[in-house]
């Protein structure tokens, strides 16, 4: 009995800090998500970059996808934080969609933090017909690295650098830093470029997100209204439809739905009910 208790203390003690900080961070991410709060979302981004990024390098990597394909996972009791993290990533994707991409992933958070700082003028809007095809590149990248892994069974080699997540460890060759700089400069013009078009993890979560249980509500007015479609920074809204695999639950359209001054759904209701405030 004593030996068992001693054993658990030895197992939990080295993991306690990780578990507490992870729980605190995930709680913050969920609160910011449910409250649809813009300031809290930015706090989440900063925490993601600082803690999950520069402190821990704990991002879901495409190597986690391989590991799941051959069920080679870390030992449970010594990797509680990893299991908690993976459970959150997969669970939140099934429940709400790519929440992970939208506010937990440190690299996604970093590029989203660039958004409010950089002038809007520098952004290039990609035409929908090009975007539709560019969205598919990430599935190609996922297939490519999966084939590479299945053939070589090597995760520590070049595949480690297929994603820019190594940047948080600050160890990279000059060529890698130049590549990253090119990617970030391109992100200045095409926002969230990596997440939308290139990320193999985003592709894998995009596939899972087709299962999404709690989807974003659409009004009947959404068939004709284009406000949200134009606002969406992820190109996830096409006409009346939200493309689940592209949506990262950034809340921008949901905040518009709630805005009784902007969303036609409410404006039409007002007209009918003679300008009295109504709630659905």
């Amino acid at each position, binding site marked *: 009995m004593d030996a068992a208790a001693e054993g658990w203390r030895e197992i939990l003690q080295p993991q306690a800090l990780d578990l507490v900080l992870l729980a605190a961070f995930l709680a913050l991410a969920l609160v910011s998500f449910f409250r649809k709060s813009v*300031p809290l979302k930015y706090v989440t981004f900063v925490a993601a970059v600082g803690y999950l990024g520069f*402190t*821990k*390098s704990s991002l879901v990597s495409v190597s986690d996808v391989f590991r799941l394909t051959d069920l*080679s996972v*870390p030992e449970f009791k*010594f*990797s509680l*934080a990893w*299991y908690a993290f993976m459970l959150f990533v997969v669970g939140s994707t099934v429940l709400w969609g790519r929440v992970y991409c939208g506010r937990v992933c440190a690299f996604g958070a970093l590029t989203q933090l660039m958004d409010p700082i950089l002038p809007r003028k520098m952004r290039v809007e990609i035409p929908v017909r090009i975007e539709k095809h560019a969205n598919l590149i990430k599935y190609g990248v996922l297939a490519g690295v999966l084939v590479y892994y299945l053939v070589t069974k090597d995760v520590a080699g070049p595949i480690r650098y297929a994603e820019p997540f190594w940047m948080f460890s600050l160890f990279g060759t000059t060529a890698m830093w130049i590549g990253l700089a090119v990617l970030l400069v391109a992100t200045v013009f095409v926002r969230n470029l990596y997440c939308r078009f290139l990320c193999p993890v985003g592709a894998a979560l995009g596939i899972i997100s087709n299962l999404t249980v709690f989807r974003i509500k659409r009004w009947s007015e959404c068939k004709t209204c284009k406000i949200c479609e134009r606002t969406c920074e992820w190109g996830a809204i096409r006409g009346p439809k939200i493309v689940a695999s592209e949506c990262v639950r950034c809340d921008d359209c949901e905040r518009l739905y709630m805005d009784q001054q902007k969303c036609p759904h409410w404006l039409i209701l007002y007209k009918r009910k003679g300008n009295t405030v109504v709630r659905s």
Partner: protein
Amino acid sequence: MSQLKRVAAIVLVLGCVTAIAAAADRIFTLQNPAAELKRLFPGAAAFSALTGDPLHFTAYTADPKTNPSAPPLGVAFWTTDLVPQEHGYHGPIHILVGMDMTGVLTGVIVTYNSEPYGYFSVEPPKFAMQFKGKKISDPFRVGGDVDAVSRASISIASATRAIRDSARMVAKQLLPEATK
């Protein structure tokens, strides 16, 4: 808007403080690893300060101040002092290594790592235990004479290399008879 600015300012200050604390943890090894040294050399009566080239602690059977002829039991050193270029997936892994005068490891203790979740998740005493009794001439091959838990291989491989290379460097420079 002013509320937003206040939140941003608080977040920024907290972020900077945590960043500095985390960086200090990552860069500096434990200031006074007395308890760890005692675990590596339970029979030692006294330890020298961290000195010499390469930097090391010396373990003595008796306090050298009272008994200057007391023979040294062995040496202990930080892998990060010897092979600073060796790092895991995310950064340096601080490992204190104990070695007796014949080049046999008396143990290793990992005091700090910032590897991603699940990367350094081997049973800490078990990982350290398997280095006890190893000779510097052993192969130190992960998957061979060093156990690897799946997925941890990047971190474990780096830690193993760091232990092997630093032990060999120290032995070469401080224990000439051990390398013969």
